[in-house]
């Protein structure tokens, strides 16, 4: 009968505790949000499954390999252990994703109207005020946040998944699960979070502002821009170079027109494979002790706060620029500065059409949208330079 005992002791039921059970529920909720509610499914489906797998009692998905004294492998590690150590602890996966994002990004609209880069800068206010909020909570002892934690939480406001994962995996890995989940969830909630703020801060007249037709951008400009950005980053903020360097590499492959087969693979097979494993790896950090605590609630709250602030800052910056410059800017495109490509730009377009059915803002909003990606990568670089 002791065989039955063995089987029973090894069963999940026998080893089940409250924490893992709750986390499996969290994983299933993430899957529900991804599949039914369409929350960033490409990331939240793998993250959700990873959460369930890593919390299956006794399944050993995050077990480290065991070696004997001679260094021979005695028992192999778990799948999620290898994925996390090889792809996330090293930073490889976020960087490869960023390369793919670069290969999918068209800088044309931004190049046609470079001033919109400033909207991408303004929207990063969300990052740093949130950081301040987090350190305040830490200082007052409400929650246990260090400066490194606070930076990781602030970067949620960047509305850029790979950037958030890259920074957090370096500064405070134990927050990776909560930060990634918050970042992707709020990116999915952009169509709900942003409109009220945008309406609040703009007058109907402002929302009807028609912008100048964007000039065509030549291929040469599109090829030279990533190189320009790369050199500028290298000279001014090398700590942002890993993220923006790969981003520029991907974009150069896209635009140069002579390596289309590499560009295609980067945008498809490669980014898809890495997305699957990135999601699983992030999920592997969704353990009860790391996720089921007040800090997570604080992170979710502060993340929402960051998104709202970034949205507002972008809109207000647009209004300010309207004051200072002759060429009109519809403030609705300011909110796209938080990146969350391309949702935020679509939101700007939607509200624009509500105000004037003939006023299409999508292309105009793509400028600040991609600028926001650069902006949050720069913000990440500053944090890594000053804290990391």
């Amino acid at each position, binding site marked *: 009968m002791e065989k039955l005992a063995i089987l029973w002791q090894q069963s999940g039921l026998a080893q089940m505790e409250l924490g893992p059970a709750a986390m499996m529920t969290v994983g299933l909720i993430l899957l529900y949000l991804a599949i039914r509610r369409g929350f960033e499914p490409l990331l939240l489906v793998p993250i959700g499954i990873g959460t369930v797998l890593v919390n299956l009692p006794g399944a050993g998905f995050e077990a480290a390999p065991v070696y004997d004294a001679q260094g021979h492998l005695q028992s192999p590690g778990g799948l999620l252990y290898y994925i996390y150590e090889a792809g996330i602890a090293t930073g490889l996966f976020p960087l490869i994703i960023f390369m793919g994002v670069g290969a999918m990004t068209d800088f044309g609209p*931004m*190049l046609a109207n*470079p*001033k919109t*880069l*400033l909207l*991408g*800068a303004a929207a*990063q*206010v969300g*990052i*740093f*005020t949130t*950081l*301040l909020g*987090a*350190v*305040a909570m*830490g*200082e007052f002892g409400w929650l246990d946040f*260090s*400066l490194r934690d*606070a*930076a990781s939480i602030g970067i949620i406001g960047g509305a850029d998944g790979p950037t958030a994962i890259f920074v957090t995996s370096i500064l405070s890995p134990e927050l990776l699960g909560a930060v990634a989940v918050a970042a992707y969830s709020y990116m999915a909630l952009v169509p709900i979070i942003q409109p009220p703020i945008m309406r609040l801060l703009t007058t109907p007249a402002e929302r009807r502002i028609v912008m100048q037709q964007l000039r*065509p*951008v*030549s*291929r*040469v*400009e*599109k090829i*030279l*821009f990533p190189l*320009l*950005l790369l050199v*500028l980053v290298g000279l*001014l*903020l090398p700590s942002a170079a890993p993220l923006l360097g790969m981003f520029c590499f991907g974009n150069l492959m896209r635009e140069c027109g002579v390596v289309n087969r590499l560009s*295609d693979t980067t945008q498809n097979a490669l980014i898809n494979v890495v997305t699957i494993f990135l999601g699983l790896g992030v999920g592997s950090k969704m353990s009860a002790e790391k996720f089921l605590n007040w800090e997570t609630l604080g992170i979710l709250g502060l993340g929402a706060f960051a998104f709202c602030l970034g949205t507002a800052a972008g809109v207000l910056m647009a209004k300010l620029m309207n004051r200072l410059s002759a060429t009109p800017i519809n403030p609705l495109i300011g909110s796209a500065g938080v990146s969350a490509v391309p949702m935020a730009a679509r939101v700007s377009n939607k509200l624009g059409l509500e105000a004037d059915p003939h006023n299409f803002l999508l292309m105009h909003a793509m400028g600040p949208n991609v*600028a926001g990606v*650069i*902006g949050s990568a*720069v*913000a990440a*670089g*500053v*944090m890594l330079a*000053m*804290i990391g």
Partner: protein
Amino acid sequence: MANGESLIAQGVDLMIYGMGTVFVFLTLLVLAVTLLSAAVRRWLPEPVPAPPAPRQVDTPPVDAHLRAIIQAAIDQHRNR
């Protein structure tokens, strides 16, 4: 960074220098891009590029169109 300061103070510093860097960097980028575009239009003028070709070749819409035409043709025959 100097650990003597309070967490708040460090956060404030980070915010000031962070936002500062972001704005300085992107402002420089605005200038650089403007110069770049000017330089390109001045020295490397180019016909505007066609939009990149679609990646997978799908069956062209014309098929549906074709089918319609045929149908018409057949009908005309029938109705004769």
